[in-house]
C-alpha cells in the first residue's frame, strides 16, 4: 500500500498517517513535538551549545544535552557530521571531548550489534549481582506513570508524551525497574523501545544490560541524593514520598545490602 506524500500541514499528515498505519502502532495517534527530518535535525544541531556539556549533561533539569539522538539513530545526522560540526565550531575542549566520547558510545553499541546480532537481546554475561527482590512482570503503574515516585513518573510521562527521556533519567528508571521492582530487563527495554524516538535495538538493549550488569562489571544503582543533585531538587520537592517512604532515600552502602545482600565494595567488585 502506497502512502500519500502530498499533504502539507503537520495536522493533515498526522490525521492521514494515523489511519494509513492503523494496526501498526499502539496508543494515541499523537505526534511528538520533536519533528522528524533533516531540516529539523540541522536546526537542533545549530541550536546546541556544547559549552558546559561535561558539567551539565547529567543534569535532567539543566539539560545540557544535545537532544540529537533521534536524528543520529535514524541516520538523519551521521556521527561523523555531528563530531565535525561541534569540533569545528567549538574547538577542542573538555566539553567537546566529553561530547565526542558520548557519540563514541553509539559507535561502540553498533559494533557490538554488528558482531552479535540478535544475541544482544539475551544476557551477554552472567549478572555480577542480582537484586534479591522477587521477580515480577512490568507492573501497570509503570505503563501509566503512576508509581507515586515523582522522579520516575515525570520521566515516564515525558517519554510517553514526547518520545524522549533524558539519559540520566533513563538510568534511574532502568535501575528502579530492575533492582527495586525485580522486572526483567527485556520488559523494560521493550517499553523504552516502543516509545523512544531514538529507540535502537543496540543502544537500548545494551544500555539496559549495562544497568543490570550482564554487560558491565557491576549493577548501576542510584539514591535520592543523586536524584536531588541532578534534578535541582525539583522532583523531590514535588514528591509525595519526600517526607518518608522514598525507596531511594538511603546510602549506597545500605542500598547494596538491601537490594543485593552484599556490601557496596562487593557490589562494585572491589572485594
Amino acid at each position, binding site marked *: *500500500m*502506497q*502512502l500519500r*506524500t502530498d499533504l502539507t500541514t503537520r495536522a493533515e*499528515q498526522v490525521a492521514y*498517517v*494515523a489511519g*494509513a*498505519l492503523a*494496526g*501498526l*502502532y*499502539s*496508543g494515541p*495517534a*499523537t*505526534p*511528538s513535538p520533536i*519533528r*522528524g527530518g*533533516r*531540516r*529539523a535535525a*540541522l*536546526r*537542533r*544541531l*545549530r541550536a546546541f551549545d556544547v559549552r558546559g556539556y561535561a558539567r551539565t549533561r547529567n543534569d535532567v533539569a539543566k539539560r545540557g544535552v544535545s537532544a540529537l539522538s*533521534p536524528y543520529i539513530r*535514524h*541516520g*538523519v*545526522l551521521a556521527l*561523523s*557530521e555531528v*563530531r565535525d*560540526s*561541534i*569540533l*569545528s565550531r567549538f574547538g577542542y575542549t573538555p566539553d567537546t571531548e566529553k561530547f*565526542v*566520547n558520548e*557519540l*563514541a558510545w553509539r559507535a*561502540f553499541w553498533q*559494533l557490538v550489534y554488528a*558482531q552479535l546480532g540478535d544475541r544482544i537481546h539475551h544476557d551477554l*554475561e552472567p549478572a555480577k549481582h542480582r537484586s534479591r527482590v522477587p521477580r515480577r512482570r512490568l507492573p501497570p503503574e509503570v505503563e501509566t506513570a503512576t508509581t507515586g515516585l515523582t522522579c520516575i513518573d515525570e520521566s515516564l510521562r515525558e517519554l*510517553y508524551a*514526547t518520545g524522549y527521556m533524558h539519559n540520566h533519567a533513563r538510568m534511574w528508571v532502568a535501575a528502579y525497574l530492575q533492582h527495586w521492582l525485580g522486572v526483567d530487563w527485556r520488559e523494560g527495554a521493550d517499553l523504552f*523501545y*516502543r*516509545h*523512544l*524516538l531514538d*529507540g535502537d*535495538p*543496540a543502544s537500548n538493549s545494551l544500555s539496559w544490560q549495562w544497568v543490570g550488569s550482564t*554487560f*558491565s562489571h557491576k549493577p548501576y544503582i542510584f539514591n535520592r541524593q543523586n536524584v536531588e543533585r541532578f534534578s535541582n531538587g525539583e522532583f523531590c520537592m514535588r514528591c509525595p514520598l519526600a517526607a518518608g517512604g522514598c525507596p531511594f532515600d538511603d546510602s549506597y552502602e545500605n542500598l547494596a545490602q538491601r537490594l543485593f545482600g552484599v556490601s557496596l565494595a562487593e557490589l562494585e567488585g572491589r572485594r
Partner: protein
Amino acid sequence: MNGAVVWLHGDSLTPTDPALLANPAAPAVFVFDEPFLAAAQLSFKRLFFLYECALEAIAGREGSIRRGVVVDEVRAFAAEHQATEVHVTASVAPRFRQYVAELRNAGLQIVIHELPPFVLWRGAPPRRFSAFWRQVADQALRPTGSGPELPAEQDVE
C-alpha cells in the same frame, strides 16, 4: 533493463543517505515493515517521526512511502521502474542482512553503500566501552571536515 532504484530504511532516512547521493536521479522507496511493526506495536510518535524523515528524504525526486512486506514492496517498486539494481545504505541490523539476501535471491542486483565512518574499526569490539575508547579516542577526536552547512540563526527553533 538496468535502471536503478534506491531503497531507504530507518537506519539512514535522510536526503544525505549515501545511496541517494550516489543516485541523484533514481526513484526511492521507504517501506513501513508491516509484519515487524504489527508485532512490535511501537508508539505512533515513532512511526510519524519516520514518516517525516522519509518525506524529506524523497523530496525532489520520484519517491514512494509504503506499508507492506519490505522485500515485496521493494521488488514491486523496482519492477515499476524497470530497475534491476537496488541501491541501499548498509545497516548492522540482522533483519537488513536477511532482506538483502531475499532481494538477491529474487534476482535483483543489490549495491550496498557505506555510511561515512566515525572511526575505522576492524573485527570484534572489546567487551567494555572504556577499552574501545582508549583505542579510538585519537581518531574520534580528529575532524574530517567542518560538518554540514547549518541554517541561519534566525531559523533556529
